């Protein structure tokens, strides 16, 4: 029975220290980089997850909403644990636990039984259904399944059940976020548009953003303006809820009534164009009022653009408190610019994030030398290129679309930089390259409270530069010789 591959029996040889040293040196070379970049099929250490993860994050952003994976239970456990580890918060979600027989009979029975149980146990105000691979491959018809569930009485008549097809063999977690958001908005706003009605509110979409403090920062800015708003997919309480001895299954999220009325908004603003590629065009066609798409407001200019847009949309002046805040942020940047100017960085992550990193770095006089997106596109590349072209500090920078973190490692070893901006998964490459990793992305499994410190707005710019500059200063203190160990830096 053994040895089905017909292998010759060999002695245990192990890996010799010489071989290890030789290959260690080899993988740092330009020759290896060339081989590495010639890869056609193997993906090593990608920087993105699959669609349903984003769908789940989105679903958690709505009041009383239970995320529901139609598919294998293992998938649901992976999404949940990823969110648990990043936020250090609960991520209550269910699956309908499809197994082998689902491949034969389809997943309708699982979905119906799952809805019945989940509703009885967890009393959701909305169930947001999304798919993992199995039902996508076998071609389950969610629309029909859910209609049947209502007819057969597994679903209360009034309970909204938006659903999104989120195949993992397409796009990334960002795509899944978009698909779920679109479905939730379509479901909640159906028939709610009232001619002539205006909520007077701004609908804000932060996108796939796993930094709860960013949501709070947007709210603070809008409050400073006195602009009433509805944040669509508001995860700030869901993933940063107080510990007062009471576990709340649904601690926050956008109120469903408000989300439904968003269709009558005064204006709708997406701050994550790449996370709303499908949702925003639909909004433009269906939501009342003005529509605007701005890049994620990282750095001064992008935050300025946000404030100017808010000012324009609501015909209000930029409040003094935010003007002062801008001044303080710029002051912090001029004070600290010498610690970042001319430094080279590599950045990777989701499109909306890397564009923000690049904008911020250029403002500091730093060079985003390698810009990498493991789920890239021509459009992302064009946007990054435009940013780089607009600054003298973008000259000579490289854009790497659809490359992974093993490619990045080769880049860091052969064309080095001073620092890396990304998420926890970059720590291996950063360690090998002996450069600091700044964990501004998602997920962060190995540091505390990153998601409690905003990286958007003027505050975000100060936070980022503080973290980056102080790390460089720590490194100087830790590594300089005795003669150069000084009081002042």
């Amino acid at each position, binding site marked *: 029975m*053994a040895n089905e591959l017909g292998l010759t029996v*060999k002695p245990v040889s192990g*890996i010799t220290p010489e071989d290890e040293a030789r290959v260690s040196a080899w993988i740092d070379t330009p020759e290896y980089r060339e081989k590495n970049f010639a890869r056609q099929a193997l993906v090593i250490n990608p920087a*993105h997850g699959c669609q349903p993860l984003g769908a789940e994050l989105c679903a958690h952003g709505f009041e009383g909403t239970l995320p*529901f994976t139609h598919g294998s239970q293992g998938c649901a456990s992976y999404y949940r644990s990823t969110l648990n580890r990043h936020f250090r918060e*609960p991520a209550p979600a269910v699956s309908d636990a499809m197994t082998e027989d689902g491949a034969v009979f389809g997943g309708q029975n699982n979905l119906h*039984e799952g809805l019945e149980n989940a509703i009885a146990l967890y009393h959701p105000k909305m169930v947001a259904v999304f798919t993992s691979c199995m039902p996508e491959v076998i071609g389950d018809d969610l629309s029909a399944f859910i209609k049947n569930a209502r007819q057969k009485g597994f679903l209360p008549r009034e309970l909204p059940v938006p659903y999104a097809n989120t195949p993992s063999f397409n796009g990334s977690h960002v795509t899944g976020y978009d698909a779920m958001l679109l479905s939730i908005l379509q479901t909640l706003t159906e028939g709610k548009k009232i001619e002539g009605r205006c909520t007077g509110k701004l609908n804000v979409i932060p996108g796939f953003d796993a930094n709860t403090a960013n949501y709070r920062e947007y709210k603070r800015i809008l409050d400073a303006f006195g602009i009433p708003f509805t944040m669509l997919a508001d995860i700030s309480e869901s993933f940063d809820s107080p*510990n007062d001895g009471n576990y709340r299954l649904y601690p926050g999220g956008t109120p469903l009534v408000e989300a439904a009325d968003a269709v009558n908004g005064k204006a709708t603003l997406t701050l994550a164009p790449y996370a709303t590629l499908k949702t925003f065009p639909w909004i433009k066609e269906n939501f009342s009022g003005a529509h605007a798409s701005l890049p994620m407001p990282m750095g001064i200019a992008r935050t300025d653009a946000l404030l100017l847009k808010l000012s324009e949309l609501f015909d209000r002046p930029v409040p003094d408190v935010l003007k002062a805040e801008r001044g303080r942020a710029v002051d912090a940047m001029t004070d600290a610019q010498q610690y970042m100017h001319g430094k080279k960085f590599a950045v990777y992550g989701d499109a909306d994030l890397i564009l923000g990193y690049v904008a911020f770095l250029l403002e500091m006089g730093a060079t985003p030398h390698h810009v990498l997106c493991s789920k890239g596109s021509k459009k992302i590349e064009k946007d990054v290129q435009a940013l780089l072209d607009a600054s003298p500090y973008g000259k000579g920078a490289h854009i790497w679309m659809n490359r992974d973190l*093993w490619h990045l490692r080769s880049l860091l070893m052969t064309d080095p930089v001073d620092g890396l901006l990304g998420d926890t998964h970059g720590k291996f490459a950063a360690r090998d390259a002996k450069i600091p990793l700044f964990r501004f992305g998602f997920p962060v499994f190995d540091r505390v409270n990153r998601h409690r410190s905003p990286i958007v707005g003027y505050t975000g710019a100060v936070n980022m530069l503080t973290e980056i500059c102080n790390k460089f200063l720590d490194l100087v203190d830790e590594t300089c010789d005795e003669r150069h160990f000084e009081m002042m830096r």
Partner: protein
Amino acid sequence: MSDAAKKVDGITRESTQKMIDEALEAYPEKGRKKRAPHLAPNDPEAAASCVKSNRKTVPGVMSARGCAYAGAKGVVWGPIRDMVHVSHGPVGCGWYSWGTRRNLMTGKNGVSQFGMQFTSDFQEKDIVYGGDKKLAVLLKEAKELFPLAKGISVLSECPVGLIGDDINAVAKKMTKELDIPVIPCNCEGFRGVSQSLGHHISNDTIRDYIIETREFVEPETPYDIALIGDYNIGGDVWSAKDLLAEIGLNVKATWTGDGEMERIAATHRVKLNLIHCYRSMNYMCRVMEEKYGIPWVEFNFFGPTNIKKSLRMIAERFDDRIKDNVEKVIAKYDPIMQKVVDEYRPRLEGKKVMLYVGGLRPRHTVGAYEDLGMVVVGAGYEFAHGDDYERTMPEMPEATVIYDDASEHELEHFVKELQPDLVGSGIKEKYLFQKMGLPFRQMHSWDYSGPYHAYQGFPVFARDIDMAVNSPTWKLVKSPF
């Protein structure tokens, strides 16, 4: 192993059954019928398991279970350090299981150990046209870029089995072409009911493709053993190996924590298999017993009482040299362990613990908690089988609640009723209970600590449990206003 009929004040069969019935009330009829047999008061004397297990998860209940792929990649294959493990299918499965189990490895990442994420990153066209060709190409690329890898495992994700790819044929062909073993593992997540089938499939794959393909170069001795079912979480294998070496045994292979494919492949030459995690690897122990006549012993390295007992049990299998060594080692560590107990026990005496872990640890750690004066008032597993529950019931006090594949609803209810001082479970449960103001330790990952196994592990375990239970932060939960 247990004293006859341990008891806990206030817990009776009636009180536990009442608590279970209350938890079941919330279910619709069908769900209640399915869940009821998985929950029961413990009967330490019973011959058969008091709960049903290894059944399909009830849809919609919020189970903590993973899938066959998780059992194959995360548990059995992933820790084998000298192989490239390809997550074959879409990007997610491999991404979520990348570095999230804490099976530590010796060697240099990307050079001599491969704790990374390798994936075929299936796209729509791979689903439509099949992924076999892509697989053949990526295997070549892996061999070229990672020349020191001793083999490559191909771990199928759901779509691979559904679209009818033949990874076994590709593996066979590429094994010849690349001159390293390419091991196909049909562990699609939809197979079976939990991680457990993934363990079994992986064991079978090791049986079919790996074992007997290597021979140790050093001469055989009567003290050659393999350490089975230790995954080196937080360094457990290293601690266990040190102790086994200290009593004079040669640990020839570790399955699979910090494991090497080559040594696993030569395990048919050992004299005894020592198995820690029975659930995930009893299959291979049985195979090696039947095929090569290698006996196996289940042992337990959690807490000084169990360690001592296990060492003596292991010594029984060897000559006086080992027996003497064991007594010497016990004499050496007894006072050290006593110091640990003396330090922590006064702060932990009488504290109640509830456990919900994978397939082994609830029963295996009962003794370690008891060494610290604590009492386990509830235990259950995500993916255990009847034989696991049979091994659990004698360890647990009379009438305490036993739960199989518990839903979050059930766990929350039991915890509210029993008011334990500590809950030990997984990441998905952790923050729920911490929000309730309850101390919690992750018992899959050792909550980023460890090792917990053997004599090096117990002081860490004791410190961590004390830290969790007695952290002053819990006292801040209730605000004065």
